[in-house]
């Protein structure tokens, strides 16, 4: 088969197509977005179609993928690590129901928080749900493991998690494709005791999930993705996922006599781990993310032969690098040059001509009249309003939290309680919070900054485009307090006046600030 130069994310997408998926369900989120985008622009070669439009959020995406699995077909769902929090209810319970058609849950973690608010490790979720995880080290493995993931899922009748970090998702290498497989036929499950999680059924299903664990460990022990690579001693490294690359980079560059066990399939392979750990007296545990398996192997009282993130051999936070591994393996690396002091920081910023800029100008102008300035923010490009020259935002926590935090603050007596949320974030997780405020008649002012797209992740379709007025009206916001504005310099005066009026209103008001994203307008 032909070779292709693909991002790790794209390798997963190509593999899912070649594994015969009938649909992908996802909400955009760095570093997972490119998986779905690749599928959207490359439908399968055999003429079968693959459903691929963006979902409203990760929970709706996950559930739709599970529904497709119920119908007997293979489905892929993709999200960033914090997106799994949104999908967690469906995720945890899909492990109890199990699946019918193969279901692979791809979660892209972001160690070092390149584009995220935390660096949570999705392997913890998989352990929590008691499902297998595949963690490729390179792009070819991302391809191979995605295909294998669907087979494994159908064999063990569980969703399988595929975990990648930013560094693999956004790095290219050549991959060799395998022969594509046909899609599954429509064959709905119909097994009610499996799919209806009434307590009587769920207790049995949960018991079955526990009993299945040994089979999952056996699968890891016989997996071709878990293997001992080098057997020189006396020091050993257990290298998980992409940490394997950094380990091997150091071992090969400095020709180190070090044993390496590569782990890319979980739960931990018991025999392999026991064989390896019995042989070496000094073992470095190299994991990208939380020290999840280091904690397990070391134990609460700390078996001293295991080194890693708890004893400082590797840093507890941030992504791994070849240099961090070199240090942990006690290699004396050459001194390198430092960054000259003349180099200034260059943080990201709102684009020139961006509609959020004119909105923040209006907000800052109006807020000057109040002794304290609070603006509850949310997740999107407009979070950059936190930086100079605007310094406009007081909070950014999770998708949709702007509206609900403003509500809670208003309940506590804070006036005015103002928040800003993007159009796509509003449909993702904002509508329910607005409904809470309407039902309580809480005095908050919600600005929906509608640029017609999911801009931060590259301009994907926004789920509610053109319908924000009707959505707000439909859930009970009074029409005279739904105020459309156009954020432009020439409208600063008028927009400030409208904003001020609504801040003075002691009930729920929504300002829909609508102007197209400057990036999508250019396309």
């Amino acid at each position, binding site marked *: 088969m032909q*070779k292709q*130069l693909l*991002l790790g994310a794209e390798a997963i997408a190509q593999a899912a197509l070649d594994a015969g998926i009938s649909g992908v369900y996802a909400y955009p989120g*760095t*570093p997972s*977005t*490119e998986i779905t985008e690749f599928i959207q622009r490359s439908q399968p070669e055999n003429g079968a179609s693959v459903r691929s439009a963006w979902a409203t959020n990760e929970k709706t995406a996950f559930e739709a993928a599970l529904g497709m699995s119920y119908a007997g077909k293979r489905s892929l769902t993709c999200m960033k690590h914090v997106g799994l929090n949104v999908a967690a209810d469906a995720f945890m319970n899909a492990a109890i129901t199990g699946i019918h058609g193969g279901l692979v849950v791809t979660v892209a973690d972001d160690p070092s928080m*390149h*584009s995220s608010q935390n660096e949570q490790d999705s392997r913890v979720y998989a352990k929590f749900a008691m499902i297998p995880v595949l963690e490729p080290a390179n792009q070819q493995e991302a391809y191979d493991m995605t295909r294998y993931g669907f087979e494994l899922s159908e064999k063990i009748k569980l969703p399988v998690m595929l975990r990648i970090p930013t*560094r*693999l998702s*956004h*790095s*290219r*290498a*050549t991959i060799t494709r395998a022969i594509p497989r046909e899609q599954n036929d429509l064959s709905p499950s119909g097994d009610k005791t499996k799919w209806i999680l009434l307590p009587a059924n769920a207790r049995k299903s949960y018991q079955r999930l526990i009993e299945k664990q040994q089979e999952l460990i056996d699968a890891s022990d016989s997996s071709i993705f878990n293997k001992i690579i080098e057997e020189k001693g006396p020091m050993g490294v257990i290298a998980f996922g*992409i940490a*394997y*690359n*950094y380990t*091997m*980079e150091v071992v*090969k*560059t400095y020709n180190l006599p070090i044993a390496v066990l590569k782990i890319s399939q979980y739960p931990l392979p018991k025999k392999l781990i026991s064989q390896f750990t019995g042989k070496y007296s000094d073992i470095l545990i190299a994991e990208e993310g939380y020290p999840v398996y280091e904690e397990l192997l070391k134990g609460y009282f700390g078996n001293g032969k295991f080194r890693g993130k708890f004893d400082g051999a590797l840093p507890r936070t941030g992504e791994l*690098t*070849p*240099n961090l591994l*070199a240090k942990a393996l006690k290699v004396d*690396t*050459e*001194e*390198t*040059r*430092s*960054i*000259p002091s*003349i*180099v*200034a*920081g*260059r*943080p*990201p*910023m*709102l*684009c020139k001509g961006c509609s959020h800029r004119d909105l923040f100008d209006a907000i800052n102008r109006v807020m000057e009249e109040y002794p304290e300035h609070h603006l509850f923010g949310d997740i999107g*490009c407009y979070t*950059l309003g936190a930086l*100079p020259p605007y310094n406009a935002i007081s909070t950014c926590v999770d998708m949709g939290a702007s509206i609900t935090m403003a509500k809670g603050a208003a309940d506590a007596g804070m006036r005015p309680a103002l928040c800003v949320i993007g159009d796509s974030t509003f449909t993702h997780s904002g509508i329910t919070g607005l409904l809470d405020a309407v039902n309580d008649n809480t005095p908050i002012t919600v600005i929906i900054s509608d640029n017609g797209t999911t801009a*931060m*992740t*590259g301009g994907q379709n926004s789920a509610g485009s053109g319908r924000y007025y009707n959505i707000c009206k439909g859930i009970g916001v009074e029409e005279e307090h739904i105020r459309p504005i156009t954020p432009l310099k020439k409208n600063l005066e008028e927009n400030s006046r409208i904003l001020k009026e609504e801040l003075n209103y002691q009930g729920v008001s929504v300002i829909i600030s609508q102007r197209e994203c400057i990036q999508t307008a250019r396309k």
Partner: protein
Amino acid sequence: MNKNIIIAGVGGQGILTIASIIDLAAMNLGLQVKQAEVHGMSQRGGAVESHLRISSEEIYSDLIPLGKADLILSIEPMEALRYLPFLSPEGVIVTATEPYKNIAHYPEEEKLMDTIKESATHLSVDAGLLARKAGSPKSFNVVMLGAASPYIGIETEELEKAIRLFFGRKGEEIVNVNTKAFRLGKEYATE
């Protein structure tokens, strides 16, 4: 054959075009390639870089280790210096001279160029001028690729072939402009 290249710039400047062309050339030669890039928040006018590794052997790390880059190819002078810890003792900086000033306290240009001179073997290129000469200011990147081409470890013809492949679907004129831009950059470097 083993080359580690950092390509640097500001989000939106198009450093990935340079990376893609080198990738294509390396692939055509049957070499291994790994190329880590930056997507997401930093693409909004922030500092961005790509770690490009080419080798005849298996490449493990997607990231270049500190002190192991043979070349920093930067399309912005201050960005060239940001990645200095990656440059090997014998490494070369090839940078465009035109600053991209989207921050409040951009350093004094003269001091910046002096620091580059003190820091490593370097070549600074007025890429804007050469791009206009080639027929399109947009060919700025490809001028820089041409200027850096003596340090990439891939033959000129192979890089030119990759340029034709890369721009091919945009038509003959775009291919010609970019080939010219590449040659002007290369001539400047070898003068």
